[in-house]
Every structure is written in C-alpha cells, then in structure tokens.
C-alpha cells in the first residue's frame, strides 16, 4: 500500500509548499541524502589540505575546476535519467561525451565551424538528439534502459574510434584557451554555474515533481494522470543538454579529441552519482548531490596522486574507484527499507 501513500503525500506537498511541517520534512529528507557525500567531501578536503596544500591557491583551484567540470556535468547528465526509474543508469554517458568531443575536433573544425555559439549549439543538440534516441528506444520499443544504454555504449565507442582512430586533432582556439585555467572565475566556472541554474529552474517545475513520482512508482504516476512517456523523454532531453556541456568542458580540458575515454568516464560518473545520494532505483536525487559526488571523486584522485605509488598509481586509482562504487551502493541501502526499493527489474 506504500504506493498509494506516495501519491497522496506528493500532491499536498506541492500545492501546500509553504506549510512549515511539510517544508521541514522535505528539508530533512534532503539533508539525509546529502549527508554522506558532504561528510566525504569535508573529510577529503581536510586530507587534501594536509597532503596537497597547493590545491588551495588560485591556480590550484582554477585547475581543480577545470579538471572536475566534465565529470560534474556528466554526473548531472545522468541524474535525471536515473531519477526516472526502471534502473535506468546511462552506461553510454562516457562514449556520448566522447562522441561530441571527437566530432567537434574532426567534423566541426575541418568544416571551419569554430564560432563559440555554433559549437555550443552543436554540442547540446547532439547530446539531446542522442538522449532522445535512447529515450525513444526505452519508451517505444520498451527495452530495459540498461540494455539500450549498453548497446548505445558499444555503438558510440565503435563509432568514435572509426571517426578518430587515435587521440589527436586540435580543439577550436577559443576552447583550447579555456584549458589554461589561470583565473578562478573563468569560462568553465561560468558553464558550471549556468548548468546549475538550469537545474535549479528545472526543480521548480511540475515536471520535476512528476519525474520524482514516476521514478518512485511508475504505475501510480500513470494512474494519477502523469504522461509518463513525455516525462521520461523530457528527462532524457535534459540529460542531453548536460552531456553537451560536459563534452565542451572535456574538449577544453584536453584541447584535442580522445575516442578512448568512454569506459573511465562512465564508471566515474555512475560512482559519483551513487555517492551523491541519487538512487539507481529512481525517484530520489538531485544535481547538488551529484556535484558533491563528483567533487569527492576528484578529491580522491588528488589525494591518491599525492602518495608516491610509482608505476602502480593508475591501478590504485582504478581499484579505489571500484571499491568506492561498491561501498557507496551498500551505503545507499541504509536509507531504504528492504523489499520496497529492491524490486526493480534490471
């Protein structure tokens, strides 16, 4: 009977948002979700302050923003998709970012299209189009999201290597200039702030409430008159916008094209998503958590690199990402009641 209670709760909370009790309850659940990533980030910042003090200079922070931005935006991109439920974590995120990165460097640059506005429009359009294709396959073909995105991963990973067989090429000049990262309030930070404002505006809409309702219980949402097809497609569309932004920041960071980054970015983004308190079973989550999760991932990388592991440092990072992902998933179990969130078809 828990499903009907969700519906009854959700409606008044929306209409009667000013009610002090309702607001307090909402804030409490919100903080419970963010508690783990926040504590982790604070702890990691403390370790970083001890191990890597140069991180806390202007240049250090500017570099940190530059390096962490693609992961933050990629994690934000898969947040609405995971919130939409059906176990829909987007495995194709890494190759999708890679695809836009590779095509900016090859197709756009060779066609002479280097105007910032055009590149932005292209990146976001490509991201949105890809996500709409994924969303359409999920909604209309009714194949489980994990399979669609797995197939998407293979298709794009292969396509990227066909378009650009090995890392290379040059980003448009203005985009490469972003990658120097010498000022704190640079264009990458502006993109991040813009993305966050966009997310904030999204959370103010009825669509966001519908998304959460659909993610927690699709049948109830459907029975309450929510157009679940439209909501799911729009969740993918919003994810696509963030994919475009992530690809722009990634291109700025590496200043060239790299078709092989897919695996790593997918795993990191999923880990950051889970760390940030977004439930892979759907219905709960947000961009703030995702950004905190991505920050934690970046800090882990920084702290690990400060130890001298020599030749095995890459393996150490790989192993710790894996362990953190598992630990974060197990931690996420603590917040759920057994049997309720567990029954999600893969």
């Amino acid at each position, binding site marked *: 009977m828990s499903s009907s209670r969700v519906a009854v709760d959700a409606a008044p909370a929306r209409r009667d948002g000013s009610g002090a009790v309702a607001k307090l309850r909402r804030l409490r659940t919100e903080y419970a979700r963010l508690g783990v990533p926040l504590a982790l980030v604070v702890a990691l910042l403390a370790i970083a302050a001890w191990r890597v003090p140069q991180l806390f200079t202007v240049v250090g922070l500017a570099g940190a923003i530059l390096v962490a931005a693609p992961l933050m935006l990629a994690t934000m991109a898969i947040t609405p998709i995971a919130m939409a439920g059906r*176990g829909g*974590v987007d495995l194709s995120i890494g190759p999708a970012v890679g695809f836009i990165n590779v095509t900016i460097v090859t197709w756009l640059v060779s066609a002479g299209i280097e105007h910032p506005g055009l590149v932005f429009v292209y990146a976001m359009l490509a991201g949105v189009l890809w996500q709409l294709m994924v969303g359409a*396959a999920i909604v209309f*073909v*009714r*194949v*489980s999201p*994990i*399979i*669609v995105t*797995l*197939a*998407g*991963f*293979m*298709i*794009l*990973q*292969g*396509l*990227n*290597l*066909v378009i650009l*067989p090995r890392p290379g090429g040059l980003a448009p000049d203005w985009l490469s200039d972003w990658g120097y990262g010498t000022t704190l309030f640079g264009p990458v930070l502006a993109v991040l702030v813009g993305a966050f404002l966009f997310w904030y505006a999204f959370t103010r809409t009825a669509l966001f409430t519908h998304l959460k309702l659909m993610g927690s219980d*699709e*049948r109830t949402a*459907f*029975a309450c008159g929510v157009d*679940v097809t439209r909501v799911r497609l729009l969740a993918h569309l919003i994810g696509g916008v963030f994919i475009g932004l992530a690809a722009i920041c990634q291109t700025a960071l590496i200043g060239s094209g790299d078709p092989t980054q897919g695996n790593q970015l997918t*795993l990191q983004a*999923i*880990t950051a998503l*889970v760390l940030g308190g977004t439930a*892979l*079973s759907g219905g709960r989550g947000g961009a703030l958590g995702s950004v905190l999760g991505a920050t934690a991932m970046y800090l882990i990388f920084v702290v690990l690199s400060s130890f001298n592991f020599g*030749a*095995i440092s*890459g*393996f*150490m*990072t*790989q*192993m*710790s*990402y*894996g*362990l*953190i*992902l*598992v630990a974060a*998933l*197990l931690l996420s*179990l603590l917040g759920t009641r*057994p049997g309720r969130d*567990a*029954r*999600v*078809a*893969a």
Partner: protein
Amino acid sequence: MSANSGAVAPVASSQVPSDPAAHPVRPARRGRLRASHDVKAVLIGGSLLALLIGIGAWQVEGFASANNVRSILLLASFLGLVALGQTAVALVGTLDLSIPFVIGAANILLAWLFATSLPPVLAILLVASLGTLVGLINGVLGFRLQGQSLIVTLGVGFAVVGGAQIFTSLGSEFSGTVFSEVPDWFSNIAAINGTTFGLPIPPVILIWAIVTAGTVFLVSRTRRGRELYAIGGNRTAAARLSISEWQTWLGVHALSGTMAALTGMLLLGFSGGGFVGVGDPYLFTTVAAVVIGGTSLLGGSGGYGATVIGVLVLQVLTSLLVGFGLGFAAQQAVFGLLILPMVALYARAPSVRSQI
C-alpha cells in the same frame, strides 16, 4: 519430472515480479506461450546463423575452409564458456559486468604464477577458486540491491582488476603485462594449432561441446536447474515453493566468476602471454550472445542452448565482418546495433498501461 516442470513452467513465463494475486495464472495458456517462445528463439537464431553462413560462403573467399571454421569454433568456445556464466546470471534477471575484468585478472595472475615455482595444476586451481570467490562476493554484495546488482559487479570488477595489476606489478617494471613460460600441454588446449589425440582440433572446442551438453542436460533434468527458471520468472512464487533465492543467486554468480576465470586462463594458453586487456571485448559480447540467443534479460526464459546459437551467430558475424575488412571498432558498433532489435524480439517489457 513432468509434475515438476508442470508446476514451474507457468510461473517461469510470467515476467512481472509483482503480487501474484493480481495476476491469476492460467496454466495451460502460459505453458504454451513459454514453449512457443523457445521455438521462436531457436528458429530466429538458427535462421540468422544460416543466413550469415550463406552470405559468408558466397561473398568471402576461404570462408568455409577448414582453417576458418576451426578459428571460428576456437574463438566461439572461449566466448561460449564465459557466456555460460552470463546466461545463468541473466536467467535470474541480472547481468555480471565484472566478467571482462575477472578474465583479465585471471589471465595475468596465471601468467605470474607460472613464473613462480608453484606446480602449474595448482596454479590453475588457485586462480579458478579465486574466480569463484569473486563471483561469491558479487552475489553477496548484490543480493539486497537486486536491480542494481549489475553496478555492484562493475565496481567489484574494477577493484579486482586493479588489485590483480598491483599484485603482479610489484617488483616488476612492466606494469600491466606479465612475461612467463606457459607449459606446452596447457597452450595445446587452447592454441589454434592444438591437437586432440592427434586430430587437428584444439581440445577447448571439445571441452566446450561437453560443457554444453552437460549444462543443457543438468538445467533441464535437475531440480536446481528448474529452480533457476522459477526464480527468474517470479520470485514471490518461487519463495512460496520453498526455493531459496539466496542460494541460487549466489550459485549463478559463483558460476559466472569461475567461468570467467577459466576463460581468462584459457586465453593465456591461446595467446601465450599475459595481458590484462584480453577480457575487454567480453563485456559486450557475452551480453550480446545471451540476447541474440533469445534469453530474456528480465529473467526466467531462454537457456544455454539458445546462448550457444547466439555465440555462433556472433562469431560467424565477426568472421564475416573481418572478411569485409571491418576493424574491431566498427564490429563493436555493428554488434551494438544488432542487440536492440534482438532484445525487442524477445524481452519487451509490458506497457505500463497493462500493469495496473
């Protein structure tokens, strides 16, 4: 036996894990549906295979030569052995994404162990049991998470391959690659020029054939085998029949880990040198083989016999694409394009409209 399968079959075809009271089971009709699903899977897979072989023999020179057939079967036996685990996991409704990492880890670990004074047979047993252990860890950690357990296996996989690389590169300057002597009898099992009792057939092909026959027999004729379908079909109903979901869940994951470790070791015999990236293609090819064969990823329908067809389809298609001059990247894209329509044929989720 007939009473047993009669009790399980109607349950197995119901793919909506929900309150059984809301879905009155109609035994006769459901039973027929399940049979028709299997027939459809074999028909589609079989005709796809025949079509591909036809195109190959017609368009690619030397496609039907003994050498090419042997190499297709050899590569198919690696994929087939590791896809056994993926099929078992898929039958209970999840996936094992740690497979490529376990393959890579087993591969370099065995190469490293061959360089020590440990007897080769013991080394192989040790790596196989480590694979089982990784599978058990996957099962234990993922059980409560169910639908998200495949993300657990992804994390475990990364941890395992990272750990194996750290272990094998301690005190070595070639990180990630391990050099050692592989015993002749071991490489004979999996090498393309391997012989079985003097016949020019690598023994691993025969091993795969025996494993296939054994698996198909055990799954269709033993209680444990039928339980797999019951749990994949409807967990609540299976629990009412006193079937332990926990044991089956652990079992399939342990099997998957073991098969991945075995395949990783066989690939060492095939290539002769340890390389951690050797498992990478198997993440998607195992899933693709399961799906193309017709095992529903929602759990409860399909089987290893179907996966064998899927494995052959994939391997023949690979050979065909190589014959047409396509590189690995393009092959991957083609496989990805193939998965979607195949899943759409077998495992479409019911519309939300019909679930209320």
